[in-house]
């Protein structure tokens, strides 16, 4: 699992936090690290990367340093392809300005295309992190089932405490049924029944997956898909939030009329793992 991990190295103040996470994963998963810096090669820069690796006790045999001069998104996508990386670790601002969000920053463009599994870490100077509480959303599909099993295996390897599986759903047009229910309370009761029914399904779904040796919790949320889970992740201080990469690359329309994946990448309160290859 995650045998080849790439990191987009920057010398910004929060670049260290990426190194810290990469070093942790490298040790837990015995991975090979590919440290990539976008820019011209210089010995001074190489020494700085080496110094960072040393600071986090990464053995010299466990990493490789590369320099590429290209447009960052393209360089990173190419880097993933040539090195056949299982995971790419990137830093990203927790929130971007509206204009930048629409135009698309390097990190967000990569999140949309997800050339491989991506771990996006919010840019924070304080690099404290732990992976005790892992949150993942599900849609009951077999792809999502595989993702949960994959996450459980990952969680066990890095000694996580629990996995919280979130099922979020929204019924567009539910409010118009108030017209015929005649009362907001009836419509709300009907909505609560749908949530209860969904929770029951989610519990059976998890029982069928039969994950052992790590605590599994289930949560059912009613709300706009992507937004409801992201808010829940934020409110409950998840250590890692996990989603599966969309099957189709989101378009500009998905940004204007915010789609599920866009809610997930619009605001990144905690590290976000986007699973593409699992």
């Amino acid at each position, binding site marked *: 699992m995650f045998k080849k991990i790439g990191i987009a190295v920057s010398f910004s103040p929060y670049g260290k936090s990426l190194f810290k996470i990469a070093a942790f994963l490298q040790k837990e998963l015995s991975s090979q690290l590919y440290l990539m810096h976008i820019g011209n090669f210089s010995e001074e820069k190489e020494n700085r990367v080496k110094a960072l690796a040393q600071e986090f006790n990464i053995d010299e045999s466990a990493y490789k340093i590369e320099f590429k001069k290209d447009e960052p998104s393209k360089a990173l996508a190419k880097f993933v392809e040539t090195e056949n990386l299982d995971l790419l670790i990137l830093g990203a601002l927790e929130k971007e300005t509206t204009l930048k969000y629409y135009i698309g920053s390097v990190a967000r463009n990569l999140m949309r295309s997800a050339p491989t599994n991506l771990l996006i870490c919010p840019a924070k100077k304080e690099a404290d992190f732990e992976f005790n509480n892992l949150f993942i959303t599900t849609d009951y599909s077999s792809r999502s089932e595989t993702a949960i099993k994959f996450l459980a295996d990952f969680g066990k390897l890095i000694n996580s405490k629990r996995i919280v599986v979130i099922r979020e759903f929204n019924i567009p047009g539910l409010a118009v049924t108030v017209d*015929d229910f005649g009362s*907001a309370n009836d*419509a709300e009761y009907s909505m609560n029944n*749908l949530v209860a029914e969904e929770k029951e399904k*989610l519990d059976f779904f998890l029982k069928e997956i039969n994950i052992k040796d790590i605590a599994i919790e289930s949560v059912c949320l009613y709300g706009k898909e992507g937004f409801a889970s992201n808010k829940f992740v934020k409110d409950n201080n998840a250590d890692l939030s996990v989603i599966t990469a969309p099957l189709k690359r989101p378009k500009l329309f998905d940004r204007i009329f915010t789609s599920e994946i866009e809610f997930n990448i619009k605001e990144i309160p905690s590290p976000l793992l986007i699973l593409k290859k699992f």
Partner: protein
Amino acid sequence: MQKLGSAEIVQLLLAITLMLGFGRAFGELFRKIKQPAVVGEILAGIFLGPTIFGTIFPEIQQFIFPSIGLVTISLDAIVNLSIIFMLLVVGLEIDLAVVIKQGTAALTTGTLGMIIPFIFGAAAAYFAPSIFGSQPDNLLIFSFFIGTALAISALPVIARTLMDLKLFKTKMGMTIMAAAMFNDLMGWIIFSIFLGLVGSSSHGGTVWETIGFTLLFTFIVLIFVRKLFDKSLPYIQSRLSWPGGILAFVMVSSLIGAILTELIGVHSIFGAFIIGVALGDSVHLSEKTKFIVHQFITNIFAPLFFVSIGLKVNFIQAFDPVIVLVIIVLGFLGKIIGCGFGAKISGFNNNESLSIGFAMNSRGVLEIVLSLVAIQSGIISEEIFVAIIILVLSSSVLAGPLMSYFTKDSRKYSFMDLIDSKSIIVSNYEKKDDQIKQLCKVASDRYKLNYDEISSRVIQRENLIPTGIGNFVAIPHAKVKINKPIVTIGINKKGLDFEAPDHQLSKIIILLLTPEDKNELQLQLLADVANKFRDKEKISSLLNISSEEEFMSKIKEELA
């Protein structure tokens, strides 16, 4: 300045009281018989209008609902305000992200569901206007009106039908909702263009100006104002009193939208509708807030508007069976063929495509508002107006039953739908594998399945994770090669150990087989069974039986 005198105030209040009271009473009555409330409200208007009340007591009816004067103008203003707020709530439920997410299927169904009935209506009106009873002054506008009136669906009726049939959360339900939302949005844009054509706008500009302003207003509100709403709503909901603050904000915003569109020459209701779309899109407008807004508007303003329809014309005098038949046939055929064909080429099977066609066939507010404008502008006759109202009523009433009939196979199955006395067997096995094998045998004999395959799959699954759920119930299950789910039930009075969490032996063993490719169906049925068998007392009473037939009648009595 003219003012309402005391007598006129009494007259106005009496009219509103009767409209609200009768509208509410008829609406409630129709709710009780599981029909859309809107049908009852329109019928209340027909009752209060010249058709019934006016025929029996013409003078009293004319006194309360005069056709000219200040009272009429005041009532007209109230009805116009009602339309604005109703359009606001229609807009609130348009979720463009859902339309985009449902993608091609929704767009194809929604588009063909508009184009085909439009062509049917417009072509019939253009090439054979005489079947509509008169030769219109402007054939092009008349044809455009007939086409548009037949092309739009009604979201509220569709939503309620989907809710009743438990189809909301299915792929078909989501496609229908998304297609109806798209249909609504496009319908109102076409409506505004229609108003430009008839020149009923206050602006007095050209058609192209109306079209340009309509699109510009839509673009600005959906791109920029929508973001502004999204940013302000959390503040408004947390700082202002609830629900008064948000209710006022929503209504004031819709009125501003209405004013702006009226000023730029587009009808005021379009502004309210687009503001509704922009507000409803915000994730910060909670479902509870939407419920409150809907409740307020649909209980007060909707009855006033729908009742007012019946006050306009004498439905008996203006009833022309030929025109009614032509409108209904064209409307039904166009919509069912258009949406059905759209659904079919999007990958739905024949029955599903037909049900989508029937669901989308529901008509509502837009047709009525459009017809009102058309009759006021002299484009259509009273006979056509009545025929369109009958189309709205009949399509709304028939949407549920027709959809229910055609979705029998694809509807969400429930545990109770899947059992009969032939699927129940009382036995005395001492080993759970024997019990499972017997249930598999019953299922395989009855539905001609491969016994070895299903029994091995169920036992394999059982060995992996035991399926006792507690309360004396176990649900051994597996996904197998079948098209529809199958349930067989074993009653074992001794009980078998299915390792239930409450450590009780299982006495009701429910074998559940589901199609291999339907992951969610299995989960839904498992959840349904768990829900049904929650009450220990009811289960004890179920175990107190001596035959399969008795169990079946008890299960219907206790769990239905």
